[in-house]
């Protein structure tokens, strides 16, 4: 009896060893970076953590296929290194000594990735399933791009400034025109007493000092330079 049990046990162990080894069919490599993720709060990877991992994978398989046949003993781990990396494989409890198809395992893990990550306080980057790529959440994009809002604000301010300056400029010029036309009216009223010769009041021509004739001053370019 004992010998039979021993034989059976060794067969099972041998079979399991065959099923779980690096690059075996339907086997996946897992890599954890606990120290990178948690720093000082990093926990050590020991048999208890391995048990938790097996439990999480079994949980994922149960949830995915929604038949409660996968047991913790169906999940086999091997080649655990210091890195912390190891290979795992899920055996089929219904059929003997066969592994569940890799695609099923992949789909199950993908579906429950979040739960597995949080069980170990890790993230997609620090708990890597090497053949299973994760879909990255897209960044949150607001409905109107932010830059258009800021652009609109600056544009409105600039246009308001331009309009303000142009309008005040026009108003100032109107006032100046009105003032100059008023002084002209005033001159016309006083004209009776002042004699005008060629548009210049005679008084200014009576100056004793020399009078610079504006016509010639601006034209010095026509004279040859000395």
């Amino acid at each position, binding site marked *: 009896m004992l010998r039979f049990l021993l034989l059976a046990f060794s067969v099972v162990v041998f079979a399991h060893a065959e099923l779980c080894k690096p690059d075996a069919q339907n086997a996946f490599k897992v890599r954890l970076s606990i120290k990178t993720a948690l720093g000082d709060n990093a926990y050590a990877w020991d048999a208890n953590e391995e048990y938790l991992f097996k439990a999480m994978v079994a949980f994922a398989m149960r949830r995915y296929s929604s038949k409660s046949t996968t047991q913790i003993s169906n999940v086999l781990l091997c080649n655990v290194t210091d*890195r912390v*990396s190891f290979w795992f494989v899920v055996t089929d409890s219904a059929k003997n000594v066969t592994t569940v198809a890799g695609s099923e395992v992949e789909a199950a893990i993908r579906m429950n990735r979040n739960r597995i990550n949080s069980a170990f306080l890790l993230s997609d980057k620090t708990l890597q399933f090497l053949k299973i790529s994760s879909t990255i959440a897209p960044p949150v994009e607001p409905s109107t791009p932010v830059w258009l809002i800021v652009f609109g604000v600056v544009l409105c301010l600039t246009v308001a400034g331009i309009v303000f300056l142009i309008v005040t400029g026009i108003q100032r010029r109107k006032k100046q025109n009105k003032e100059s036309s008023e002084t002209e009216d005033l001159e016309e009223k006083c004209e009776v007493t002042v004699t005008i010769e060629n548009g210049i009041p005679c008084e200014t021509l009576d100056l004793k000092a020399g009078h610079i004739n504006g016509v010639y001053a601006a034209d010095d370019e026509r004279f040859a330079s000395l």
Partner: protein
Amino acid sequence: MEKSRPLWDNPLQFVFACISYAVGLGNVWRFPYLCQMYGGGGFLIPYFIMLVVEGMPLLYLELAVGQRMRRGSIGAWKMISPYLCGVGVASVVVSFFLSMYYNVINAWAFWYLFHSFQDPLPWASCPLNGNRTGDEAECARTSPTQYFWYRRTLNIAPSLEAAGALQWEQALCLTLAWLLVYLCILRGTESTGKVVYVTASLPYCVLIIYLIRGLTLHGAVNGLIYMFTPKLEQLANPKAWISAATQIFFSLGLGFGSLIAFASYNEPSNNCERHAVVVSLINSATSIFASIVTFSIYGFKATFNYESCMSKVILLLTNAFDLEEGSLTADNLGAVQGHLQAAHPQRYAELQPQLKNCSLEAELDTAVQGTGLAFIVYSEAIKNMEVPQLYSVLYFVMLLMLGIGSMLGNTAAILTPLTDSKFIASHLSKEVVSGLVCFINCIIGLIFTMEAGNYWFDIFNDYAATLSLLLIVLVETIAVCYVYGIRRFEKDLHTMIGHKPSWYWKVMWAFASPLLIISLFIFYITDYILTGTLQYQAWDAAQGQLVTKDYPGYALAVIGLLVAASTMCIPLGALLTLARRRLRRGRARPVA
């Protein structure tokens, strides 16, 4: 009776206007590059010698001409000698070309500024690809900052020939940039005088903030040591001296007519000698100050990249050989690598191509200038700082202020001769003329917002102003010294500022500066001839880097036109005046 010429409210406005114009983007993105290429701290020696021999005398000359003649560039040179009206026209043409393409830089600065109000910054990481499994293909080949610049900002075409469509986002930013410039120049010196208080001083505030932040960054010291260790053997390289001369020359903005325009709004008794010295010294000091900031940023970026490279190598080795986490560090990496190579030669050999040799020196050696430095390198450094949005906003506001300040000078160079002309001033008001100039420039500037627009920008940037300016300033100096006469100029200066210029100024004006400009001119011509075909850098999306291509025929024709359009004005102007005088004399003779 003549309307009185508008004046600056006080001499400080004039100094600020000159500083705002002279201190531009070149101080920030060209001088640090030259410093790095030509011997670090040692480059300051040729730089200061050129400042004394070339910069200060030529600046004083232009300011004095503007202040004496009280006209824009066309009128001023006409008064020096009627045959020189072509010089003024050439200045206006060059300024027109410059304002066409320069405001595009302000448009880019606006674009980056508007995008700085997001968390995280859009150039901090790559966008995801279609099925969300990884980064976008083009972005993964280069870096997120380069991707944001070449793809999201420029949407650059693979070559000059593939013109591509107009980028409406860039067109909007360009329109905004021109509207802002119009707002500042609308009322002439009245509005410009107030604006330059801001555009001259704000960049210094930001530079000081960046200096403090930069010096406290991790690894900044590496950059500073790298910059300031003088490599004196570079002084024997003639290119170092030529680069120093060209940097001083273009940095001060001589020959565009902007300085003449600004000085023409001065009181005749303004001490332009003191102002010339002050402005040129401040300009050079700002260059050095900006390069300290730039090099601390470089040091930070290089150290950051070096440490990322090291972590990548460590991660790769840790994963490949399943070593314990944290057992490999930067210190023991070399030893462990050797051990692994000995123990597992095959596995190590397979890994070899992926293991990059990380070197801090190599990171520091990547010298960049121009838009690459301003928009790629700086934004890469900013995204790694704390509170990157704040530093990003500050930085791009500073770039905007520097750019707008230079644009004010450019547009003044175009508008002052136009408003001086009696024909235009009698028909159109100042606001309408300014508006027309801004509108025309904006429409033409839309070329630079097309997909291949950046290549045209490079053409304008490299060829529109370089040769023409050298010729213009050479003719200016010779005209003042030998045609107008240095004795007469001396007397004019004595009337204006109260004392005659010392022998130093006269020697520089008469001999040193013209000789220097002639040698620069000869160097440029021989350089163009020797290099044969002109080439440009095009962005290859497939490789994720810049590749060199030849200019097509029509691009070379445009380059030729650009140079000819401004340089030909000088002889044409002289010939036209000669022809007009002959005709007048011919008409007058029969009467007499």
